[in-house]
């Protein structure tokens, strides 16, 4: 890549912003995560000693619990979203009418653009005490204030975003699967359902995998959904960071959690790109 003065000039604003607003702050967080926190202060002291305590403390069950909670929600929500979104994406991909396509894609994109807060608030109204909490929890035979119901509402909150984004991601995948292949299977005697299970679905596996990983990463980083719909009972890793910061100003510990969260997110994204690139090689 030849660098000329013009190129450097064009890159300068972007690089400058990055250095100032991402790279240096993150470096600072890494540094902070290794410093000792003395309760009562804000953040670490000026010359606090270095320590691994912030990280080792996280292995304790109390903290590992948060991570597992987040993982559990992530897994359940992502899988559910995929199962629900796949048929929808399929219907859209094979849709003949351009108007219907445009409307459905527009609808999904609109759902994505919707402010998270609006989404969460709307769900709170609908599934909270002023909404259908009593009805639904009654149907499920659980307490409307109980753990199970709260978990359910949080999952709804996640799904409200995950389903549209999965549908759109999978739409891209399914569009690239040749419909003639499933038709060939049907000509050979398979029922439509079977032809999709044995032909179309396996061909979509890389797309499904990447959609899953995208959903999973989004769940891991979820903040507003558990914060408001979880009513303090459901805590994701991101809420832990916020608590560290707002309640006890334990910046070093918050930093350590943040770094771990970042590493997991990066590893998952790396996984996505590997999956996608192997698919390209196979093609």
């Amino acid at each position: 890549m030849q660098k000329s003065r013009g190129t450097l000039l064009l890159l300068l604003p972007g690089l400058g912003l990055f250095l100032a607003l991402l790279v240096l702050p993150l470096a600072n967080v890494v540094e902070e995560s290794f410093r000792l926190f003395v309760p009562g202060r804000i953040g670490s002291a000026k010359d606090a000693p270095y320590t691994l305590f912030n990280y080792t403390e996280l292995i304790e069950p109390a903290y590992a619990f948060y991570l597992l909670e987040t993982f559990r929600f992530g897994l359940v929500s992502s899988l559910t979203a995929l199962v629900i979104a796949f048929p929808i994406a399929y219907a859209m991909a094979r849709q003949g009418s351009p108007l219907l396509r445009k409307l459905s894609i527009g609808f999904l994109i609109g759902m994505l653009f919707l402010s998270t807060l609006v989404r969460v608030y709307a769900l709170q109204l609908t599934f909270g005490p002023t909404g259908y909490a009593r009805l639904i929890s009654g149907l499920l035979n659980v307490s409307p204030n109980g753990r199970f119901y709260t978990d359910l509402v949080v999952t709804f909150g996640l799904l409200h975003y995950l389903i549209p984004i999965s549908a759109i991601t999978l739409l891209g995948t399914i569009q690239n699967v040749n419909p003639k292949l499933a038709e060939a299977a049907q000509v050979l005697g398979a029922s439509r359902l079977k032809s999709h299970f044995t032909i179309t679905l396996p061909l979509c596996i890389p797309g499904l995998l990447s959609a899953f990983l995208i959903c999973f990463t989004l769940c891991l980083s979820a903040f507003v959904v558990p914060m408001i719909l979880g009513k303090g009972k459901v805590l994701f890793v991101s809420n832990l960071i916020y608590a560290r910061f707002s309640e006890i100003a334990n910046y070093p510990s918050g930093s350590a959690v943040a770094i771990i969260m970042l590493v997991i997110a990066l590893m998952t994204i790396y996984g996505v790109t590997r999956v996608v690139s192997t698919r390209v090689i196979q093609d």
Partner: protein
Amino acid sequence: MRRLIDNIGTWLGIANILIVLVFLIFPIAVAVMMSFDARDYLGRFPPQAYSIRWYESFFSDAYYLQGLTTSLILAVIATFVSTTAGVSAAIVLDRHTGRSKEVLESLFLSPLVVPAVVIGFALLLFFSLLGVFDGFTRLLGGHIIITFPYTVRTTLAGLVGIRKTLTEAAMALGANERRAFWDVTFPLARTGIVAGAVFAFAFSMDDIAVSLFLTSPDTYTLPVAMVSMMRTNFDLTIAAAAVVLMVFTFLLILALNWAIGLEKLIGQGVFRS
């Protein structure tokens, strides 16, 4: 001849779509309807009578209005800065190939991958370290870094779609690199740039996670105002605020559709039925 299993499959598929539609739309409808609730307290859904009292409350509440104004100003400035920097970066990325280009591209798109909480937290610590305590500056920094990837990505996607032979044709006809860019590349890339700006604006208005960390008592965005109200005074003014935000979203989608058409965002795929 359709088999039973196929029919069941089709019915399940239709049921799935209907349930999802209801699931996605119904809560929004609830929020909209409740925002017009005539009762002066938060009662059970559905409302029996309607009024615009909550909108009056919203638009006369200095706390909310300040949040809205701050959100809008932040969005405008952040979009402008992000778009300028993003377009420049996209131009460079489009012109080159190879390892360093890929690394640079990943770097510029990385804020999409870093959890918002981590960004907010990191910026807060960093600004404190630098001694930057002004709420607006901090919020602006946060909004710029989270909107930047969108401008880069959509502009780059637009640029990639422009055949290289077009700029070469211009050069063979006598235009130097700079003229070729302004005469050929830029007009064709315009839709990508506009789309990027629309995305940036929308995500700046929407942001809550980063803003929560960087807010200060006298400078806050509308979503931050709504969250604090949810904790203190959970009344339906929040519903009115939510609907106002939704209207903004809808207008932005219309703008996006006018600029580039929504199917182009997804593409047609190789096989069209």
